[in-house]
């Protein structure tokens, strides 16, 4: 083993001072950097109030929103009138339509004599009222089918068909039975029995299972079966939300004659069925119904998606066409003129540094919302970026080719065409393709400020917080488009640059 004498060691240390005793900031560079980053993270934690925001966030609703991406709810509700008459109904926007009778809801009906207080205006119609106004309502619609039996001036007795018992099954997860004064919920072998009292409120008989909750005795009870369903029980009724996997009414909305039919029946109707609308064939009717589906708005979504694609394509192409001649002016070795170099380079810097957002907002004001604003924004930003990259590529070319062409006496234009262009053209095209692909992504986001394309539609769908399935649909379309363009541009670029595709 080699032993170094202290004197020699001192000698080495003197000659290479930086090696043995490196400066403090060199030795602890990593530690200092890590400490700095940590401090910055702590500062951001305070600056953005992250702990507070995360603590007050509504995480329960996040699960519902996420579930909405891939599923839908049907909400039957049983309303209980004070006299014990029940009525089953669905919201107007229900995916099954307002008058659905799904096989997981059973009702028993019976005739019942009801006493209703009568509003004066109905019992004694004002003589001045025009008859046209009252004809909006079909005669007898307000009182059901039976003849009203008027007793005195203040109440009407009618015999009506009402629901006496409703049973709602949530798949295999649970059963909900509703009687006028009693509700039974069964889930996971446990049973929740509830008595509805008009004065004392909602009263639990026995213990409350873990899947149900009540804030105070007498108040409304909420229960949840996890993903498959939930609901609440109150004195005036029971509302159930059953969740189904999938996208409801994706092809035909509830107003379409094809709604609710199985695929095979729709196919046979379209191919050989009798005309539903005598004016046109079933195929064109079905296609029209799909395009103008009120919930999914397929035609509008596709148009907006096409706008996004067009914005990226036209914007990048025009930027390439504009940056091409300008980059020759900007390259020091091509145009030997300081002023033109500086002018065009500063122009590129300006175009690039004014953000795409600013250009997008500016042109949205100028051209009105739509793809023209998006095209202009992408064009202005990318002329700057591409021009900068192109002029750098031009400054790095090999001079031998140019000299060769020049030495045989070619004209200046021919020198550029045969001496410069063959070297840079693949690089130019490759860079333009790269930006085309990345602009397809950025076109989505500038659309959200009004510059056309699918961005705004996405933003509007998200703002209501109830159309997450439409958001999922659009995101899926965007992902497909981005992946296709990604692959396409990658393959074209690797062919241009002569590399194997990765």
């Amino acid at each position, binding site marked *: 083993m080699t032993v170094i004498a202290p004197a020699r060691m001192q000698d080495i240390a003197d000659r290479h001072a930086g090696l043995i005793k490196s400066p403090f900031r060199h030795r602890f560079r990593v530690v200092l950097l890590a400490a700095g980053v940590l401090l910055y993270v702590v500062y951001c934690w305070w600056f953005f109030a992250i702990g507070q925001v995360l603590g007050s966030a509504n995480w329960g609703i996040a699960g519902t929103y996420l579930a909405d991406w891939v599923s839908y709810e049907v909400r039957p509700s049983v309303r209980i009138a004070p006299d014990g008459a029940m009525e089953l109904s669905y919201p107007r926007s229900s995916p099954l339509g307002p008058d659905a009778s799904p096989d997981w809801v059973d009702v028993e009906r019976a005739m019942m004599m009801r006493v209703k207080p009568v509003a004066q205006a109905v019992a004694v119609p004002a003589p001045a009222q025009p008859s046209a106004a009252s004809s909006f309502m079909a005669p007898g619609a307000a009182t059901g089918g039976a003849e009203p039996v008027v007793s005195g001036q203040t109440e009407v007795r009618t015999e009506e068909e009402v629901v006496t018992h409703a049973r709602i099954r949530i798949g295999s997860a649970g059963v909900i039975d509703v009687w006028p004064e009693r509700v039974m919920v069964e889930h996971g072998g446990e049973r929740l029995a509830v008595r509805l009292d008009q004065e004392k409120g909602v009263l639990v008989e026995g213990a409350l299972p873990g899947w149900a909750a009540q804030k105070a005795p007498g108040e409304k009870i909420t229960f949840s079966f996890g993903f498959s369903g939930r609901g609440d029980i109150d004195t005036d009724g029971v509302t159930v939300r059953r969740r189904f996997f999938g996208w409801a009414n994706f092809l035909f909305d509830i107003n379409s004659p094809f709604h609710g039919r199985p695929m095979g029946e729709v196919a046979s109707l379209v191919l050989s069925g009798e005309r539903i609308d005598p004016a046109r064939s079933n195929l064109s009717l079905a296609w029209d119904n799909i395009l103008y589906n009120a919930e999914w708005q397929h035609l509008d979504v596709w148009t907006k998606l096409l706008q996004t694609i067009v914005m990226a394509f036209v914007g990048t192409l025009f930027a390439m066409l504009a940056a091409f001649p300008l980059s020759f002016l900007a390259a020091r070795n091509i145009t030997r003129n300081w002023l033109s170099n500086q002018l065009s380079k500063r122009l590129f810097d300006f175009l690039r540094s004014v953000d795409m957002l600013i250009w997008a907002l500016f042109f949205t004001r100028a051209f009105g919302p739509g793809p023209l604003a998006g095209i202009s924004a992408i064009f202005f930003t990318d002329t700057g970026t591409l021009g900068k990259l192109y002029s750098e590529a031009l400054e790095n070319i090999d001079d031998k080719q140019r000299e060769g062409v020049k030495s045989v006496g070619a004209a200046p234009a021919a020198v550029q065409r045969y001496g410069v262009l063959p070297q840079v053209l693949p690089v130019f095209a490759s860079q333009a393709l790269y930006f085309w692909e990345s602009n397809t992504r950025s076109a989505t986001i500038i659309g959200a400020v009004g510059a056309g394309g699918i961005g705004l539609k996405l933003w509007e769908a998200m703002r209501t917080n109830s159309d997450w399935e439409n958001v999922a649909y659009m*995101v899926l379309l965007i992902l497909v488009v981005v992946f296709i363009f990604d692959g396409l541009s990658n393959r074209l670029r690797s062919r241009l640059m002569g590399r194997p595709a990765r």
Partner: protein
Amino acid sequence: MATSLFQHGFSEKGALIERHWQELNARRRLYSWLGFAVLALALSGSLWFANETNAGKFFDRLPHVFDFVGDLAPRDGMEVIRALFDLASPYDDGSFKYNYPEGRLYLTDSLYVPEYFHKMLETLNIALFSTIIGGALGFVLCFLAARNTMSNRLMRGFSCRVMEILRAFPEVVLAGFFLAILSLGPLPAVIAVSIHTVGALGKLFFEVVENADMKAEEGLRAVGANWTERVWFGFVPQVLPNFVSYFLLRLEINVRASTIIGAVGGGGIGELLRLSIGQRHEAKTLAIVLLLLATIIAVDQFSAWLRRRLVGDQAFRLAQ
């Protein structure tokens, strides 16, 4: 001229080669022209479509573009300075247009940070913080996705797909979703930009790792180092300069991205810019544009300087 000179001197074989070459050339030219025709067709179709579906038509609106530029001129030049530094305006009539002193952030009784500087700082913080988070996660993910560090095919495929999806997922949707859960504020923007950065930086990092020199790793493997040690001592030192360079490049992009996300509801300077352009507050708009321009140029210059110091001119080649 040049071809006629040589044409007489060809032997039979030479003439054949010449003819084949001419045919090949003609075919190539045909393909080029076909390509151009398709491109021209696509372009004109696209332009027609864009013009049809736009709210205003191009040629109708073109003269008004310059009206709008005229609208942007403030009442006097000093107004821009006043808006930028939150100084009281002599035109103050109580409307939002001239209420510059409002929105000052007082540090002490008399010392304040002007509103736009404060918001700009917020945007910069969103960008930097989310680049750090995205960079840290991308750093972990890239070693799980690279062929030379991860032998498990399943794990590799999984990490690659995760990065691809994170990269392609629209940022607007992420921002909107977290806006719905976390309510208004800059945090949704931070999350959206971070998630996108994980994918984007992860991909760049992963390509650097795949092209790394394996000698150091082999040496470590020979002395029995485990996976973490091999990655930490064999790969990290040689890829770190490139990683930092990409990190800085991404920081530049994220400053712009967080401005845009701000404009769609993520807070920061972007939101103020959208509002002031929409309400025709010309002095405020110009002040914000000036501030943004200066910030973006400063960030770009700083990052370029640092990158040049770290990896030299190599950092300025196009990221393929």
